[in-house]
């Protein structure tokens, strides 16, 4: 097998087995070349937990930040950690990341390592921009420099484009990503996301992506089950979807997992909407439903007895 010692942690990370990725062994004394990327993935996994385990992430990053010339990638991940810590000072963090990205702007042709670093920085920056709603900037960040050949950036971009209802662009992004690496999990994920949006045969194929994740030994995490259930639901297999949610609930913290609760809500399961807004008030679906509720009141207010 190709000596990508990062393979395992990467896979876990991509396969939405965040918990497992976050608990990957990591020794601070590790001084191999892979130490930093590995630490970055673990830190990112910690940050991706719901709720994020910020202190753990920071602990993992600490040795690298303490170096004399800390890697921009580590700084970027640290920035995300800071961002997630508090509401205040977010603007500063964003600016910091913006500067990190700018460093690469002028770069001509970096080394391979440098490229990977740049990718991480861009992913982090893109994530932050998206979280901040700076979509234009996110697009720019994720399409420039080495982002064009970085699958993580492209995956982020695909998600962003899909959320902007630009399936056409997402499809072309996916096509160009496919040229980079055909069998990567991320590529499959991108295809699946697009497929879920498309319907028909692509939808069926997407389902199999989630089914594969579901069948993996490390699978059946909250996000995986949520994705599996959602794919079922999109295929109008409501009963199977409900079974997935039930399974997810059996897990530790399943009833707190925003992703699971959101899909449960979509399935119309009793009480899930309120559970969702209670357990994960910041989940986009919870926010969306709240917004729709007020939208309804607003709209209903426009009607009344007409003389």
């Amino acid at each position, binding site marked *: 097998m190709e000596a990508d010692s990062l393979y395992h942690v990467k896979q876990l990370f991509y396969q939405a087995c965040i918990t497992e990725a976050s608990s990957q062994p990591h020794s601070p004394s590790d001084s191999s070349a892979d130490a930093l990327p590995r630490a970055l993935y673990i830190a990112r996994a910690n940050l991706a937990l719901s709720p994020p385990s910020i202190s753990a992430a920071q602990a993992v990053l600490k040795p690298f930040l303490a170096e004399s010339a800390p890697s921009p990638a580590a700084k970027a991940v640290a920035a995300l950690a800071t961002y997630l810590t508090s509401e205040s000072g977010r603007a500063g963090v964003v600016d910091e990341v913006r500067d990190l990205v700018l460093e690469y702007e002028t770069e001509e042709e970096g080394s391979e390592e440098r490229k990977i670093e740049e990718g991480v920085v861009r992913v982090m920056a893109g994530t932050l921009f998206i979280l901040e709603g700076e979509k234009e900037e996110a697009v720019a960040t994720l*399409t420039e420099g080495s982002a064009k050949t970085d699958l993580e950036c492209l995956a982020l971009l695909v998600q962003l484009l899909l*959320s902007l209802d630009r399936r056409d662009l997402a499809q072309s992004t996916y096509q160009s990503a496919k040229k980079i690496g055909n069998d990567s999990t991320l590529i499959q994920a991108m295809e699946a996301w697009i497929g879920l949006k498309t319907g028909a045969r692509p*939808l069926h194929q997407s389902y199999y992506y989630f089914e594969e994740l579901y069948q993996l030994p490390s699978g059946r995490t909250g996000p995986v089950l949520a994705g599996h259930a959602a794919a079922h639901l999109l295929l109008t297999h409501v009963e199977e979807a409900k079974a997935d949610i039930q399974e997810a609930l059996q897990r530790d913290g399943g009833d707190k997992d925003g992703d699971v609760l959101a899909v449960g809500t979509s399935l119309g399961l009793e009480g899930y909407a309120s559970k969702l807004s209670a357990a994960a008030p910041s*989940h986009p679906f919870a926010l969306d439903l709240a917004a729709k509720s007020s939208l309804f009141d607003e*709209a*209903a207010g426009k*009607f009344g007895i007409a003389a």
Partner: protein
Amino acid sequence: MQMLTKFESKSPRVKGIAFHPKTPLLAASLHNGTIQLWNYQMGTLVDRYDEHDGPVRGICFHPTQPIFCSGGDDYKIKVWNYKQRKCLFTLTGHLDYVRTVFFHREYPWIISASDDQTIRIWNWQSRTCIAILTGHNHYIMCAQFHPWDDLVVSASMDLTVRVWDISGLRKKNQAHQAPMSFEEQAARANQGQADLFGNADCTVKFLLEGHDRGVNWASFHPTLPLIVSCGDDRQIKLWRMSETKAWEVDSCRGHFNNVSMTMFHPRHELILSASEDKTIRVWDMTKRTAVQTFRREHDRFWVLTAHPELNLFAAGHDNGLIVFKLERERPAFSLSGNQLFYVKDKVIRMADLTTGTNQGICSVRKLGSQWVQPRTLSYNPAERAVLVTTQATENGQYELVTLPKTEGPAAGDGKDVPSEGKKGTGASAIFVARNRLAALDKTAQSIEIRDLSNNLTKSVKCPVQTTDIFYGGTASLLLATANSVVLFDIQQQKTLAEVTTPAVKYVVWSADGNMVALLSKHTITIANKSLGQSALIHETIRIKSAAWDDSGILIYTTLNHIKYALPQGDNGIIKTLEQPVYLTRVKGQIVHCLDRTGTPRTITIDPTEYRFKLALARKNYDEVLQIIRNSNLVGQSIIAYLQKKGYPEIALHFVQDQQTRFDLAIECGNLQVALEMARAVDREDVWNRLGAAALKQGNHSIVETAYQKAKNFDKLSFLYLTTGNTQRLGMMQSIAVKRGDNMSRFQNSLYLGDVPSRVAVLRETGQYPLAYYTAKTNGLEDLALDILEEAGMTEDDLPPPPQNSGHRALAPPPIVFSQAESNWPIKDLGVSFFDRALANGGMDAESSTANGTGEQLDAWAVNGGDVDGGDAGEEDVAEDEGWDLDAEVIAPPEEEEVDDVLAQGESSDLSEGVSQGVSENEMWARNSPLAADHAAAGAFESAMQLLNRQVAAVQFAPLKPLFLQAYQLAHVHVPANASLPSLEFNVRRNPEVTELREVLPAIAFNLDDIKTGEVAEANRFFARAKFAESLALFRGILQKLLMVVATKQSDADEIKELVITCREYIVGLTLEVERRRLVTEQPENISRNLELAAYFTHCKLGATHVQLALRSAMSVFSKAGNHATAAVFARRLIDANPGDAKVITQARAVLAQGDRNPRDAHEITYDHFTAFDICPASLTPIYQGSPAVVAAYTGAKYLPEYKNTVCVVDGITQVGLPASGMRSIV
């Protein structure tokens, strides 16, 4: 006997003539030195050879090799290869004219006769002379091998005919072929020496003397030991020979000039002769009497030959040659059911087509001349009678034969059973009815009708100059004239119809008698039974016969083909024939026919092609499909046919060639296939055509691809403008910049409404005035000043703008609907039957057609039928294409710029900012007129507007949970990238569709759930008298029904009914709830209490529920002392026939009480005689005809004063507001 001329040519004098034994080739050697090669069937001159110097007299084809030999007055014998079309070699040796040359049937020998008084035998393989036969002492006119014996016969001017024995030569030749022992070699050497001295190999066997002048020709009988010779003494002599001697038998006299040639008829006991007296004569070999003389006016006959296998003769004369037959080979026959009656060798035979057996019945030897076969046969199944005609005599003759009833085999296979028929004269005679026959008297031009005793019953004058008569349906005749056919009714003696056609020789009726084929020499007229012509078929070669298939297809034969003709005239070849056959019947794949020897045969044909065409012509597409699947139909002809007939989509199945597939796909509007093929072909003209075709259908994504591929920048820009794709327009603009095309830049900036860049273009191109005014009008004052400065002018220098220029900025209209994402409504081409069927069945068909069209079908299935995949794939590809735009398609003139564009290409598409796309929510709202779908799409306001319009809904608060739930159920979030919010997906109720114009949200509420859930529950509450709960549930149902999406019309109808039911229950329950409230709160108000109870019974509830209401009203009324009205309820209750006996008893008691005491204690507003509705608000009756206002949703009627209030039944709608009615199905 007739001379039936089959072919005639004009040329200089023909001195030699030879048939090819297999192919329809005829070689003629001419007096002018030319050898002609004719195809006598097609009537064409195949080749000519001009290498002989002087007349060519002898010519002969080799029986198997593609060679022929010729001998001429240049003393030469030449051997030719007619395939290589050249002379192979020349045999020289003769010292004078060569008269005849013949190949040996077996050995590589040529025998030649020459004026040098020798006969020579040559080996054409070794090209040497192997024998010289000397003995004649004058010119030798002819020398031939015996057909099977080692003999040669020769005729000479020395008045003798000699028979030579060449067995020695044969033995020597045979010996050559085997490996030789030493002794043999020695013997041969000796023999060879001997050969030099004499003719040891060939000796004269018989010397036949008898002719008084030079003998011109002598030939052997094909089977018998007979020789016939002829000479300048104008006689034909018949000689017989035995092992030891030969003698003259007899002479035939009649010719009055030199007889140039004579021969035995290959099959009959006849002798033929050709003479310089311009006649060909036929003699009876046994009686030595003249049978027939065929005379020509000016042409002396020089040669005569018979075809080695066919009944054909050829004769050469002064001005050319003729090919002729002496007898008709077409057997007379008639088909009746499965029985075929025909004449063979003058014996009437019957063949059973089912069993394939045949037997002779009786002989008609006495009819006409001995040598002439009957021409027609007409069978009368009712009387088992046969009418046979012959044209042996001048006016023709017929014989009416009653066939023996016995079915058993006749003596001598019929030969020895003489017919004892009644004869009469008539050119043609047929049965026209069970007991009548008609005979045509050609000279008198009358038709005689006779009964079966051959007694004349009447005579009818022909209305037209008739040459022949045919059966024309019962009591009718078809009269053939030289240029038409007339349908003639014998009884009325009236012409019914007439059709113009070349002289008709035969008439063939279809089995059901509805169609008739009129066969002429080269045409077939297909007509119906009243001679309405439906088709005319032309053939270049002779048409021989025809028969109708059961499915209405005419199968016919020409000289060399079996062909078919559809009723509308399409025809084609089924099979090639070696020999002509005469069709008697066609049944499925089996063609029954008689061959030229009069033997019944069957031929198996492949009916696929004509069945396919027939099915197509009759629009029987199921069968077409069946045939496509199950047979191997391929070939250019079928494609061309389909295309010509307007079925390009079917043709598409057979085509592999990309260009052709493209053409066909364009023709049938199958853009997907066209696109695929265009990609494969990838030529500009192809893209242009695809673009035009796609534009017609409004499929602009394909138009876009096509324009891109064809680099049609202007059109592409305009397309983006019309589809509102501003983003790509922007790209077009940057491309225009790269291309340095200022016009295009200007145009795109205009389309985009991008004033600065428009100004920039104008400025760069030096159009300062225009730039200035453009800037100025659009309020870009600074820019305007810049321009002025650049132009070196001030504002004062400028002429005032034209008066009418105005100050309006020029900008494209805003985009109302961006159509970039999906296509325009596409012209509905109507799914072709084949598209559908072939797509659906494609997979099944795979196995059966794997050999030929399987692949095609497969491909088809994937493209057309597989709705869930193929299309989506295509669409994606198409979109993808669009983004290749600047990367590949656009090739600017300079290389550097290419790089530039490429470098920017990837980023420019995204870096210029990504605008929000059309969300699926928007599509949902656009695609559905249902409030539920709008709510699911989150378009609450438009959902409300819809409800407002449809059911006059104004108060939406009760619907809030429903709206939210609909939205909630139609969206699902899937976690995607780490640390990012999850991705939202829209749940569709039709996940299999790909066209964005058809997507619809998941159904949140469906009828079945409501029926099994809420409705059942509400009914349970009702039965248990939990009225308040029941009321709330029914109202909830009513509200929910507004959000129900039905998928079929029956459901939608059921929803409408359910709304009415709910209304009735709600009104009834309101009454009852109110009554109970009164009972507890205002017990004194008895009359109101009674009224409410009475009204309750008038709600249209379920049967058992009405009984409950009646029982309640009955008891309430009895208690209150309103016995008369209570009795009314009691009666209604009894009429309702309740199941419980106790209830009936109770009702009877109340009824009795009412009869005893028919009075009401309390005065109430209740008239049970007049129909009324109950105002749900005031709970008072609205009698028919009284003014009322209606709540649009439930149809509840209110008193007028409740107009413009919220309906109390549903709690949502406004009373009295007009509405269009609820919709629950898309």
